[in-house]
């Protein structure tokens, strides 16, 4: 039973990881690719971490307290990933825009006007 839950969590995680990789090929430029690769893969990783947490907690409650360490460490990794991942994605996007890569096929680009104001 507990193994079934873990397998389902792992499957959800891996499906989102695959979609994140596919988005690298589907999308045209760096910004849209960041949507897929940086975020879908985070969501997939959350589910894989959840599978590890459930695994550790299950063994900890069924008489092997040393497995609780596994869960605790995975929770710390999850929190750190959730804090650092948006920061990294934002840094990549900002660096790309500053180095002159315009979003491909953009309907509207408000940031262009901001730069003009700043140059004056």
């Amino acid at each position, binding site marked *: 039973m507990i193994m079934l839950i873990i397998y389902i969590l792992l499957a959800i995680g891996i499906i989102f990881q695959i979609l994140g990789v596919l988005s690298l090929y589907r999308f045209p430029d760096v910004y849209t690719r960041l949507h897929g690769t940086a*975020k879908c893969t985070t969501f997939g990783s959350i589910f894989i971490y959840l599978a590890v947490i459930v695994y550790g907690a299950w063994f900890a409650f069924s008489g092997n307290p040393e497995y609780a360490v596994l869960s605790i460490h995975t929770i710390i990794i999850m929190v750190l990933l959730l*804090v650092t991942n948006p920061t990294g994605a934002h840094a990549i996007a900002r660096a790309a825009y500053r180095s002159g890569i315009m979003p491909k096929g953009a309907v509207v680009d408000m940031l262009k006007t901001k730069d003009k104001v700043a140059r004056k």
Partner: protein
Amino acid sequence: MTVLAIAFIFSFLFYLVLTAGSGKVLVWSIEEICFGIIFSILTAILVKKLWLSVGAKPDLRILNPKRWAFFLIYAIGPLFFEITKANFDVACRVITGKIRPGIVKISPGMKTDFGTMMVANSITLTPRTLAVDVDDKGNIYVHWIFVKIKEPRVEDICSSFPKWIKRIVE
């Protein structure tokens, strides 16, 4: 002094969480606790130096446990729900390839830099929106994968995030 004490307490707690299950004193061994105290004092001194070099004043309101409770509810409730919803949306767009990208500007109207940072991080953590730049007035420039409205309100991009973050940090 307060900065020193707070930095020491938090780094020591973090060290204790990391080394849980190493020995017999409760769940820690004596060596780990001694090393934890030494390294926490070192970390606290470094943090204090950083604070002095930046010249910032510590904002102690964030230590209120009510704000932490709000943060936990926010992270598990609205934020995770939005992330899930947006993930399925982007997953569909990966398969169908239907995109209409653009960079739009929103003004969430947060008073502090920390609030603006949390809104921008929440926006970036949600797929289909990506914070590209921030200006001095706290306006966030968001890359949106499917632009429905060219001048969106705050609710169109990040449903109820600013309301929650105002409760947490302001």
